[in-house]
C-alpha cells in the first residue's frame, strides 16, 4: 500500500485527537484523545519503518536492518504512554474524590 494512505490516516487521527483535547472538558475523554494522538504518531512511525525496509529490499540489500529504529521508537512510546496513563488515571481518581467531577474547567487552581 502506498505511504500516502498511512499518512492521511494518521494525520486524521492526530487532528481528531488534537481537536478533542482542545474542545472537550471531560478529563477522561481528553485522556483518550491524547492516546489517540500518540497512536497516530506510532502508526506513522511503523509505516515509515516499513517503507524504508521495503526500499532497502528493493535496492537488493537482503539482510538489511533499515527502518528498525522506527519500530523501536514505537515500543518506547507505548511504554511511556502506559506509564503516563497510570499516572494520569491516578490523578483523575484523586480529582474525582476531591471535587466529585472530572470536568477540567473546575481545575483552574493552576494559577494559584
Amino acid at each position, binding site marked *: 500500500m502506498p505511504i500516502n494512505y498511512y499518512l492521511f490516516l494518521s494525520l486524521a487521527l492526530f487532528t481528531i485527537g488534537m481537536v478533542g*483535547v482542545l474542545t472537550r472538558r471531560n478529563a477522561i475523554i481528553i485522556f483518550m484523545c491524547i492516546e489517540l494522538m500518540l497512536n497516530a504518531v506510532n502508526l506513522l512511525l511503523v509505516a515509515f519503518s516499513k517503507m524504508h525496509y521495503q526500499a532497502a529490499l528493493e535496492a537488493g540489500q537482503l539482510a538489511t536492518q533499515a527502518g528498525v529504529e522506527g519500530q523501536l521508537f514505537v515500543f518506547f512510546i507505548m511504554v511511556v504512554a502506559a506509564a503516563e496513563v497510570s499516572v494520569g488515571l491516578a490523578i483523575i481518581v484523586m480529582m474525582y474524590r476531591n471535587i466529585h467531577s472530572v470536568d477540567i474547567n473546575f481545575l483552574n487552581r493552576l494559577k494559584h
Partner: protein
Amino acid sequence: MQDIFQLAYWIPLLPLLGALLNGLGRNHLNRTLSGLVGSATVLGSFVLSLLIFFQVKAGQSGVVHYFDFIRVGSFSIPFAFQIDALSSLFLLIITGVGFLIHVYSTAYMHHEEPAHFARYFAYLNLFVFSMLLLVLGSNYVILFMGWEGVGLCSYLLIGYWFKNPAYTAAANKAFIMNRIGDLAFLVALFWIITKSGVVGFQEFFAFVQQHQFTDRFTATDITVITVLFFIGATGKSAQLPLYTWLPDAMAGPTPVSALIHAATMVTAGIYLIARSNMLYSLAPHTLHLISWVGLMTALLAASIAVAQNDIKKVLAYSTVSQLGFMFLALGTGAYAAAVFHVMTHAFFKALLFLGSGSVIHAMGGEQDIRNMGGLSKKLRVTYITFLIGCIAIAGVPPFSGFFSKDAILLSVFLHSPIQYALALLAALLTAFYMFRLLFLTFSGRFRGTQEQLHHLHESPLAMTLPLVVLAVLSIVGGWVGIPAALVPDAEALHHFLSPVIPVLTHAVSHETEYALMALSTGLVLAMIAAAWMRYRNYQPGTPANAFINLLENKWYVDELYHKLIVHPFYVLAGWLRAIVEAKGIDGLVNGVGRAVQYSARQLRLVQSGQAGLYVLLMVLSMAIMLLIQFFIRK
C-alpha cells in the same frame, strides 16, 4: 666602563622604592624615618647620577636596553634608558636640587601628622621618580610615561591639603590644563608611529634624516609633529595659553612649588624640545611660533609679577616668565642656551622658593609681602641667600643667571632685533619685580602684627643648609657657560652637550657681545636702583592706578578663560545633562524598563489557570513555529 650604565635603572628605582615604602608604611613610620627614607633614596640617585655624569663627561654614552615594554608584530617599544650629555645633565639637576628640597621639607613639613608627613614624602619621591623616567627614557613612550607621572604627582602635591576646596580646585586646574597639552603630545606620538614605525629617539631621528622632505616624511609632517609637541610643552611648561595653572600651583606646600618650578615638571617641555632639536631644526615655522609664544609669555608673566603681593605668586609668575625665556631660546635655535638656563634657573628658583618658604615659616603662614618688611635683621641667612637668588635671576654678572640669560639674549639679538628689545624689556621687568619683592620683604619697617614680630625666628639648619648650598650654586652655576668673549676656552656646557645638541657658531664680533652685555647689565642695575628708590621704605595704602590694578588682576586672563571656555563648557555640560542625559539616555534606559514592565503586566493575564487555554496556546504556538520553520527552510 659600561658597568655603571647598567646600574642606571637604580636611579629612578630608588625614589620609586622610597615612594612605595613611605606610601604603604605611612601609618607605621615616624617623621624622622620617613624623612630619612625620602631623602636618602634621592641622595642615592644623586650619587649614581654623579657617577654617570662623569662617565658621560669622559666621552661615554649609549642606550641601555632592559626589556621590551610592548611588542606587537614587527613594532616594538623597548624599555630602555638613554644616557648621554643631555639626560645626565638633567639627572644631576633633578636629583641634586630634588635632594636639597627633600632635606628642606623634613623641617618645613614638621608640623604635619606623621601619616600625612609620610604621604607627602611618598608623593615627593614619586614625583622625582616620574621626572627621572621622563629624562632617562630612550623613546617617546617612556618619556610620555614620565610626562604623565609628573602630571599626576603635581596634582597630588598641589592638592596635598585636600581639605581646602580652593586647593583641590587648583590641583584640578593644573591636571586639566596639563591634559590638554598631553592630548597634543599623544597625537604627535601616534603621528610618529604611523609615519615612521619607530619611537626610539635615535631610530626616529635616523628615519627623519633619511626620509626628510620626501613622501614618507613631508614638511607638513615635520611641522605638525613639532607644533603638537610644542602644544604638549606649553601645557607642561606653563606657556601661553596654558600657563594659568602654574601660579595656582602654589596651593601646595612651598617646597613642592620649588620642586615643580625648579627641578622637575616645568622643565619637561624644554627637555622634550631640546631632545627633539634635530626635528625642530627642520621646522622653521614652528621655531618662529615658539620664539614668539615664549617671548609673549615672558613679557606677560613679568608684567603680572610686578603687581603681585603674594610672595609665592611673584615667584610663580617669574617662573612662567623665565620659562618663556627658555622657549624663546629654543625658538631661536639656541637649544644649549635653553638647557643652560634650565640649569641656572633650577638653582636660583629653588633657592628663592625655599627662601620664601623660610620667610613664610617665620611669619607663621603669612604670604602677603605688604605685611612683611624689615626681616633682614631677624632672618640673616634667609636674607643673604634670597638676595643672592635675586641677583642671580636679575642677571648681574658674575652670578649664574647673567650668563644663561646673556646666551639667550645674544641668540635672540642675532635672530631678530625686535624680539631682542622685547626680551630685554622682560629681563628688566624681572630685575624690577624681584628686587621689589626683596625690598618689600626684607627692608624698611616691619608691617605685620606684634604677635608675628614676636614669633619671628630664623629657620632650623635643615632649612638653611639647602639655602646656602643653592646660593653657592646660584653664584657659580653659571660659570660652566661663560661666553668665549670673556675667557678663552669657555662655553664648557655647550661642548659638553655637543653630542646631542649641535654647537651654534656665532658670527658675531666680541665687541658686539661686550656691548650687549654692558647694555643689559647697566639697565638691570638701573632697574634695581629704581626698585630700591621706590620700595626701600614702602608704606601700605599707596593708591594704585588703573594699570596697576589691571596687572594685579593678571590682565584678567583667568576671568577671560572663565568667560570664554569654562563658562560655555559648563553651560554645554548643563544642557547635555538636562536634555541628552535626562531625556535621551535616561529616557532610553527607563523606557526599556517600562516596556518590559508593561508587556509583563499584559502577558500576566494569560495565566488564567485554565488548562484548556494552556493547551490551546501550546498548540497554536507550535503551529506558528512549524510554519515559521517551514517558510524559513525555503
